[in-house]
């Protein structure tokens, strides 16, 4: 029996498989398919302080081995989450990570301040990298200074661990990763979606009402894997890899590159049980290769 647990320093996960925010609803949507207790943890859909209307449709377009979305973080807000959803999630014995959003730095702080009063949350993931809420993908994760400011403010506000979710739409992600680390982030998650465009050639209009969207799915895996490897080589805090993970092999690539854990995203839509399958595939790989604890393979890329 392989020990799949991973130690992030500030918390231990029973296995390295988490779900990516925005692809797993508030967790409950998946309970017909997935025993949440079996996951390393789950990251629920991004929460602003108030409920959020979201973008007009069409919000989705499929591209080659990828999905471009422009949902615009439609959601229920912290109060409804705390009153209606969280009580139903507390019975699950696994890490619940809440993805936190804000229009301004102060809103991120207000969200964690409110949620700090609620029990049953393991950590926050700061969504400073959603490409779909402001014009042309503008977000704090695009510069080291804006990243530093929001992470610092949130860290001053909360007692819980903070994972900062970075954007791939930057020139040098290492610089931004180090800025988040310097501001006190406990971990990093790499990455959010890639700002993208798809065109209807008959009508000569964008296929999404929002014009741009964020690309996810297998198409982006090699791109994000590269960034994860670059960041783990320089940062001291743990990195969680996200992007195009459909199988245990995909997850292993991230772990070997140095990610301590992974988040499974788009795969949840196609196979709602893909997280459980990926955990089984990781276990099978370890057994076949005589690996007794999964931590043995983290960061073992030979270059």
């Amino acid at each position, binding site marked *: 029996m392989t020990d799949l647990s991973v130690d992030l320093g500030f918390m231990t996960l029973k296995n390295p498989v988490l779900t990516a925010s*925005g*692809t*797993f*609803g508030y967790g409950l*949507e*998946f309970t*017909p*398919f997935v025993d949440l207790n079996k996951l390393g943890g789950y990251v629920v*859909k991004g929460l602003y302080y108030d409920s959020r*209307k*979201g973008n*007009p*449709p*069409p*919000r*989705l*377009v*499929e591209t*080659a*081995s*990828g*999905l471009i*979305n422009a*949902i615009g973080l*439609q959601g229920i807000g912290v109060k409804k989450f705390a009153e209606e959803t969280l009580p139903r999630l507390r019975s699950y014995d696994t890490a619940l990570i809440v993805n936190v959003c804000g229009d301004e730095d102060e809103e991120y702080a207000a969200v964690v301040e409110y949620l700090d009063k609620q029990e049953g949350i393991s950590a926050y993931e700061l969504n400073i990298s959603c490409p779909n809420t402001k014009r042309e993908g503008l977000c704090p994760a695009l510069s080291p200074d804006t990243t530093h400011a929001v992470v610092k403010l949130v860290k001053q506000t909360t007692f819980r661990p903070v994972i900062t979710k970075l954007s791939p739409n930057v020139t040098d992600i290492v610089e931004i990763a180090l800025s988040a680390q310097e501001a006190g982030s406990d971990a990093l998650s790499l990455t959010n979606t890639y700002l993208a465009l798809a065109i209807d050639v008959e009508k000569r209009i964008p296929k999404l009402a929002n014009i741009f969207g964020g690309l996810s*799915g*297998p198409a982006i895996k090699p791109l994000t894997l590269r960034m994860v490897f670059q960041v783990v080589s320089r940062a001291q805090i743990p990195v969680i890899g996200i992007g195009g993970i*459909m199988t245990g092999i995909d997850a292993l690539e991230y772990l070997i590159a140095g990610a301590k854990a992974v988040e499974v995203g*788009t795969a*949840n*839509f*196609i*196979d*709602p*049980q893909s997280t459980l399958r990926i955990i089984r595939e990781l276990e099978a790989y370890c057994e076949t290769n005589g690996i007794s604890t999964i931590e043995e393979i983290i960061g073992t890329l030979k270059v």
Partner: protein
Amino acid sequence: MHKEPDALIVKKQDWDGYCLLRLKTETIASESQPGQFIMVRPSENLHPLLRRPFSIHSVQDDCVEIFFLKSGIGTTLLSQRSEGDRLDILGPLGKGFHLENALPGRKVPLVGGGRGIAPLYFLAQRLRELGGLPCIFYGGKTLSDLPLKQKFEKDHYELYVSTDDGSFGFEGFITDLFQREFENLSPSCLFSCGPEAMMRKLALVAQERSIPAEFSLESIMGCGFGACWGCVRMIKTGSKEEWVKICEEGPVFTGKRIVWQDEES
């Protein structure tokens, strides 16, 4: 809601542009209601990536049928599958038609345009079982858009057919034929699925005549079970209008709740 990774294709019918697949899935078949849908994975590979939504066209014993227009890569790949192949499906999903408005002994028009006829066959089956009198309005651009005509005829449904080009039946829109027949039928309610413009027109007719009407909407869907928030439409709830997930609260909505899209969209 069940995941059936190996649903056997037990029957396939192919027409010019359209396809019907009958899938063996006891659990999904036994729980399906008219207006609900299933998500079908068109390929085991990474392209095309997402499942495709299909309304349940009929339930036959332990099988469900889907009927679709070959319109893109997903539906084209599915139309190339053969009897004996297996498909990965999820279902039944969503909320279907409310049959309680269909009063026994009163005519119930089911108005379908093109591929929108798909869920209405199952609805007709169920209404008949409940003692209702479904009458089918089936419209298409041209005769080849009406591949299910014989199926409805064979089952002796009261059938009204229109084609835009007059190649068969009434020449013009199915909405015009429906309005012409309205007084004769004196229906207690109306159910419909098809192009936006057709359904919007029918919603107006239903409102003018003060009969309840339900419409099955369609959208690109990422997951089909409420997780991705990709399939929204503007829906009225009381005095509030908001983006509502079609997969979860629909795909069937009453005409009064739907905010119809603009003429040009």
